[in-house]
Every structure is written in C-alpha cells, then in structure tokens.
C-alpha cells in the first residue's frame, strides 16, 4: 500500500505540473461555471417566474453540482489523452502500482476542483447568493460536492481508457454537457411532465443540487419527489458510492489489462 501512496503522489504531482505548464484547459473549466452563472442568472433570470436575485441564488448550488458532474468530461479527456498518446503504455511498462495512475489523476482533479470553488463562490456572493447554514453544513456540502466529483471522475476515467481515440472521447465528453439540463440544477423539476420529471429527479445531479440548496439554506428539500431528492444527502452518498463501485474497479482492471 505504501508503494501505491508513493506512486500515486508522484503521479498527482505530474498532473499538477501539467496544469501549471498548460493552464488553458484549467482556466476554461474554471471560468465556465462563472460565465454560466452570469449568463443564466441575468438572461434567463429575467424570464423565469422567480425574482432575479432569487433565481441567481437558486442557480449557485445547481451550477456547483453541474460543475462536479463535469468530472466525467475532464476524467475522460485526460485518460483518453494519456492512452492515445502513449503515456499510459510507458507508465504500464514501469514498476508502478497498477491503481496509482488513475488514482493520481482522480486526486489531482479533486485538488483542482476544490481550488476552483473559490473564484466561483466569490462571484456567487457578488451576485447575491448567501450561505445561510452552519460551519458544519458548509463542511458537509463541501464533502458531498467533492465526493460526487470523485465519482464522476472515475466514470470519466473508465470511459477515457475505453475510448477508441481522442476525438471520440472529446465528442462523448461534450454530450455530458446535457446531463445537468435534465436535472434540478437550472430549473425546478416540479413542473416537468411525469416521465421527464422522474428522469430529472433520479439524475444524481438533482440529489446533489437539492442537498447543496438545503445545506446552504437556499431552498428547502421538496417533500413530493423521488427518493434521492427527498433524501438528498443519503441520495448523493448512495449515488456516489454506486458510481465508484461500478467504475473504479473496471477502470483499474482496464488499465492493468491494456
């Protein structure tokens, strides 16, 4: 296990150095939620029934959850890049613990995600969102957010390792952009038609969004909704656990077998 920690740390360092050398992608992924907050908040905000400030505050937890789900895209993109540029092959011929490479990638992603929260939350405060929970609520919200991000990253790593080429991974990655559209991240789900509403409420992003809205005091937990939404903390934990349990072993297996 100590080899895993050692190799994982070395590979975490690799990912962070890559980002430092080539910050373009990082800047893009970090500024996207801010742009969306401003765009949705002021453009869509003027068209929805909620008052503007209220809609922007409603959006903040949703965008946090949507950004967390972007772990699928970044995880897939990086794993596909490594696989199709030969880096994965080089690492697999080295005496490196098999799980260390995907683990290092996932760990680096968590560091970057956590750091990216700061500018986003500053902008969120500037447009009128307030965190009204306790310090414990904040810690719980952060934990749920990072846990869900980690789960999404594993899904992405598996898809990236299995991808046929970098372009295919890029195309599939852009599809993940629609996932938050079918959740409560940007809109209240109560008014959706039956099957669409069920789909949106069972979307893991909705569970996290509801949990974050509840913990931050933005909006209460709905009472009439699917189980992951009426029990958002448990719902997020279960969804994250299920995603990790399904994809992490497969990703490591895929990595080992080549």
């Amino acid at each position, binding site marked *: 296990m100590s080899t895993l920690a050692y190799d994982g740390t*070395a590979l975490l360092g690799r990912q962070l150095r890559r980002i430092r050398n080539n910050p373009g992608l990082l800047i893009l992924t970090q500024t996207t939620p801010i742009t969306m907050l401003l765009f949705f908040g002021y453009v869509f905000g003027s068209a929805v029934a909620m008052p503007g400030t209220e809609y922007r505050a409603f959006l903040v937890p949703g965008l946090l959850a949507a950004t967390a789900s972007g772990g699928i895209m970044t995880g897939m993109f990086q794993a596909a890049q490594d696989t199709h540029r*030969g880096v994965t*092959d080089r*690492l697999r011929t080295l*005496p490196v613990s098999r799980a260390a490479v995907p683990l290092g990638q996932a760990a680096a992603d968590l560091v970057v995600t956590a750091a990216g929260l700061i500018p986003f939350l500053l902008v969120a405060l500037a447009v009128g969102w307030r965190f009204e929970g306790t310090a414990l609520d904040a810690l719980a919200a952060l934990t749920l957010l990072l846990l869900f991000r980690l789960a999404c990253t594993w899904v992405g790593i598996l898809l990236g390792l299995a991808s046929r080429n970098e372009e295919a991974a890029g195309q599939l990655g852009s599809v993940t952009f629609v996932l938050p559209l079918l959740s409560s991240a940007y809109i209240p789900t109560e008014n959706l038609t039956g099957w669409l509403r069920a789909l949106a409420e069972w979307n893991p992003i909705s569970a996290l969004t509801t949990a974050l809205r509840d913990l931050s005091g933005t909006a209460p937990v709905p009472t009439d909704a699917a189980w992951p939404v009426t029990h958002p903390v448990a719902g997020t934990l279960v969804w994250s656990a299920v995603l990790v349990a399904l994809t992490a072993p497969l990703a490591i297996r895929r990595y080992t077998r080549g």
Partner: protein
Amino acid sequence: MRGLDLAVAEGTVCGLLGPNGAGKTTAVRLLTTLLRPDGGSARVAGYDLVREPARIRRRIGVTGQDSSVDGDLTGRQNLSLFARLHRLRDPGGRGAELLERFGLTEAADRPVSTYSGGMRRRLDLAASLVRRPEILFLDEPTTGLDPASRNQIWDAVRELTAQGTTVLLTTQYLEEADQLADDIALVDRGRVAHTGAPRELKALIGSEAEVVVAHADALPGAAAVLDRLTGSAPAFDHDRAAVRAVTRDTTLTLPRLVRELDAAGVPLLDASLRPPTLNDVFLRLTAGPLDDKEHAA
C-alpha cells in the same frame, strides 16, 4: 502470434524484421508486459512473463513506435517523474545526466509538445534508460527520423550494448538491422521464419551475377557460362539483353566471371556480381515487402 520462438543472448542486439502485420509489435507488447499472452511462455531477464511481470518491469526499458512522453511536461519533468517511479535516489540528477547525454539540456525546461520529432524520440529513449535496463526494447526507434537523429540513436544503442545491455530491435529499415543487429530474426505471419547473423542470412540467399551482352543472339552463350559457374538456372531479360543467376559460391569473383565469359567469346557489355542486401533476403524469405505503411500488428 502463432508460435514465435526467440532466444536472445545477453549483451547483443537482436533485430526483429518482418513485413507489417507479421507480429513484431505484438511480440514487443507481449514481452514488455503490455499484453497478456493467451498461451505459450516466455522469460524476460530470467523472469516468467505471466507470473512475474513486476520483476520484469524493473529490468526493462521500452521505446515504442509512438512517442510516450508527456507533451504537457518539460523534458526535465518527464525524466524526473520516470526516475521517481523507478525509485531512484536522485531523480533530478539522473534526469539532468540523461538530458546532457542526449543533447537536450538546452530544451530541458520547455514543454515536450514544442520538441521536434527527433528531440522527442531522443527523450523517449532517455526515458527508457532512466534506470539502466538489462533489456531494452526498441520498436522502430528511428522511423520518420532524419539521418542525424538516426545516427544519434544508433550511437546510443551501440554504447548501451557495449555496457552489457541486451537490445531487441524491430525495424523497417534493413540498413538499421544491418548496422546494429548481431542476430536477425525474420518474422512472418506470427512466427520466426529464419534467424541468423546478417552475414549468414545473406549467404543463404547468395549473390546475384548479371551479364549484359551486345545483342540478344549472344544470350544463350552467356547463359551457358553462368550456368556452369553458378550451378543455378539463369533467368533471361531479353529487353535488356541480360541474363542473371544466383550463386552461393563465395569463391566466384567478378574478374573470373569476366575472363570466363570472354574466353567463351561472349560480346560482354556489362557484368556485375552483387552481394545480396537484407532487402533481398527479406523479399526471398518472407511473404511480403517491407515498405507498405499499414501497421496491422
């Protein structure tokens, strides 16, 4: 793979030569633990491929056809990462040493994505040598490189074998195999068709004698002489008024060929006795040519 039997002596270079799709790259991927064999057995550096892959990984270096260094990292960062993963005490120091050795010191702190093809390949080779490997696998290490970069890679390989490293080289360039390899294994359709030193393989084919005469009427006379000297059936090229025959007789020289033809009254215009190239060997002993670009393996 249909049964590729291969034994390589320590400290030598074995060239794996074969048409595309013959299984060279598959062989390298199997032996470097990148692929799991579904049958058969192999020992690399004395360890069993299936049961002890981790021990093998500590003792090998691999440079594949495609660059396998991280383009977003600098040359220096790449090498120290690999040195760290190899558990070297001074990863930075070893990296600097290799950068110097491969003439990359000046570019050391630039991202690899800005390197030229030759620089990338040199860094790739350096990355395979971070911990001096017992066995170095080179899968078409100079494909697409300019002659200067190619020579640098060749020099590095010679230096390594002088220090006792065993090299398994696959290549499309027969000249490369001729220059570097102590032994050559011709691979065809997943199995080894022939093995031997380049000289032995060439002897297997024999030299080709070609005679050009003044007019086609003189061809039978010339053919009779060639037949007697080479002991093989001559082939005619009526358009060029030429006749060719293959000989494995190493005592046959060009002056003797010319004298005998002259003595027989053949109106000789041109004569040549050409030792075979590895290309001839290759074409004769395997099913396909080397130079189509598909990589089915």
